[in-house]
C-alpha cells in the first residue's frame, strides 16, 4: 500500500534556515546543511526546501547551497523559490532534486508549467498554492510569498494548475502556517477531494494527533511539517526532530 507522506518543509533565506509565522515573522533556526543531514539520518519520507526571498527579490536560486544539500540526501528532494525558466529548472534537476515547486511565476509566465511538464514530466512539477483569508474572510490564493492577492479561489486555481501540467499540489494555509493551531481541515479536505493529482496539506500542524486525523479523514496524499519538526514545542527552543513512525497510524 502506498504510504501517506510526512514531509519536513524548510525555509531558507540567503544561507540560513529560518521559520516564519503566517509568512511574516521570520525566526532564525540554524545551518540548512546540518539540519538536512539530521533529516537524512531520521529517514524522512521526502524533504521540501523553499527559498522565501527568491521570488520577491527576483534572484536566482542559491545553487551552491542546493548542491551541498543534495549531496547529503538520499530521499526525494523538492525545491521551490524563484524558478521562472526551463534553464533554471534543469539546473535544479541536475543537482539531484526530483521535483521543483512553481508558484509565483505561474501567474505571470503562462506556459511555464506546460513547458517544464513536457520536458521533465508532471511528476517533477509541484505547484504550490498559498491560501489566505481576505478582508471579508474569503479564502483566496496569494502569490509572491503571500504578498500578492491573485483573487482566484483555491479550487479554481487547483484545477487550473492540474490542467496546465502540475503533478502535485502543495496546499498551504498562510493563516495557520507557524501557528501550531492545527491544519485547515476543511480547505485540505475540499481540495484533495476535488482534484485528481496528489495534494499535500501544510500549515498549522502541532501534534501527532493532527497528522493522524487529517490523513485518516481526508484524501490528502501527505502533510508537510514546519514548526513541529524544528522546535521542541510551541514557544520553545530549536530541536530538529521527526514524528516517531510507530505513533503514526496506517491510513
Amino acid at each position, binding site marked *: 500500500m502506498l504510504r501517506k507522506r510526512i514531509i519536513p518543509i524548510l525555509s531558507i533565506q540567503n544561507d540560513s534556515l529560518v521559520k516564519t509565522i503566517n509568512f511574516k515573522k521570520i525566526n532564525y533556526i540554524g545551518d540548512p546543511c546540518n539540519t538536512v543531514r539530521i533529516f537524512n539520518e531520521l529517514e524522512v519520507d521526502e524533504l521540501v526546501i523553499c527559498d522565501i526571498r527568491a521570488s520577491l527579490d527576483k534572484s536566482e536560486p542559491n545553487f551552491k547551497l542546493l548542491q551541498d544539500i*543534495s*549531496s547529503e540526501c538520499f530521499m526525494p528532494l523538492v525545491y521551490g523559490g524563484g524558478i521562472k525558466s526551463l534553464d533554471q529548472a534543469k539546473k535544479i534537476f541536475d543537482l539531484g532534486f*526530483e521535483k521543483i515547486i512553481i508558484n509565483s511565476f505561474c501567474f505571470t509566465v503562462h506556459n511555464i508549467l506546460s513547458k517544464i511538464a513536457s*520536458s521533465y*514530466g508532471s511528476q517533477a512539477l509541484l505547484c504550490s498554492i498559498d491560501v489566505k483569508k481576505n478582508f471579508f474572510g474569503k479564502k483566496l490564493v496569494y502569490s509572491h510569498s503571500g504578498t500578492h492577492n491573485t483573487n482566484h479561489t483555491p479550487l479554481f486555481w487547483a484545477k487550473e494548475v492540474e490542467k496546465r501540467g502540475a*503533478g502535485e499540489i502543495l496546499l498551504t494555509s498562510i493563516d495557520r502556517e507557524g501557528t501550531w493551531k492545527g491544519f485547515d481541515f476543511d480547505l485540505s479536505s475540499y481540495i484533495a477531494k476535488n482534484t485528481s493529482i*496528489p495534494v499535500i496539506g501544510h500549515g498549522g500542524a502541532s501534534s501527532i494527533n493532527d497528522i493522524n486525523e487529517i490523513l485518516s479523514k481526508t484524501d490528502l496524499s501527505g502533510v508537510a511539517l514546519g514548526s513541529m519538526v524544528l522546535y521542541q514545542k510551541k514557544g520553545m527552543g530549536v530541536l530538529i526532530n521527526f514524528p516517531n513512525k510507530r505513533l503514526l497510524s496506517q491510513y
Partner: protein
Amino acid sequence: MITILDYGLGNIGSLKNMFKRIRQNVNITSSPCQIIKSTKIVIPGVGSFDEAMNRINNIKGLKEALNLKALHHKIPILGVCLGMQLLTHKSEEGTLDGFKWIPGETKRFPKSSKFKIPHMGWNEVSSRNLKSKLIKNINHDDRYYFVHSYYVKVHNEDHSLLKTKHNIEFDSAINKDNLYGVQFHPEKSHKYGMKILKNFSEISC
C-alpha cells in the same frame, strides 16, 4: 567503474551521490565509444518514453553500442524508473520502440478516484524471485520511493523480481539474464535503495 548513461533526461546527480557514498567510481557519458568500453551500465530516466528514445536514437551509434553491450557482451545493465520502461518493447506513453531487451510492455495506470496518478511515494514490494543477485538480502518491510504514471508488465513471469500494488499489481523490479530494471528510485530510497545499488555494483561482470 559504473557507467551512467547521460542522454539529457534523468536524475544523474542523485545516482552519482549515492554511488559515491557506497564508494563506487562512476563515469557519466553519452559517448558510444565510452559505452563500448564500459563494464557495467546504469540507464536512468525521468520524463516521457518517446522523449527518452528520441534522445537516444539521435546520438549517432548510441543505440547500437547499447545493444552490443546488452545482448552480446552481456554486461550488467540496470534501468531505473523510465530507464526500466525503456528495456521493454513499447509504451502506451508513446509510439516509439523501446530497447526490446526484456519482453514486456509499459502501460498507463487505470484512472481511479481512490488511487491517484502518478503513483508517488513510498511503497512496499513483494518478492517473486529471491535468487536474483539484485535483490539479495532485502527484507519484506523494506520500502522504496516511486514516482511514475506508467507501469511495466513483463510477458514472462520468470522475468519479474518484485511486485508492488497500486490499484493493480505491477512489476517493480525485473531481470532477464544480465539485464535488470527497477521502477522505484533506489538513489532516493535511503538505506533500502542503497542495498539495491550495492548489490548491482557487486554483480560480477
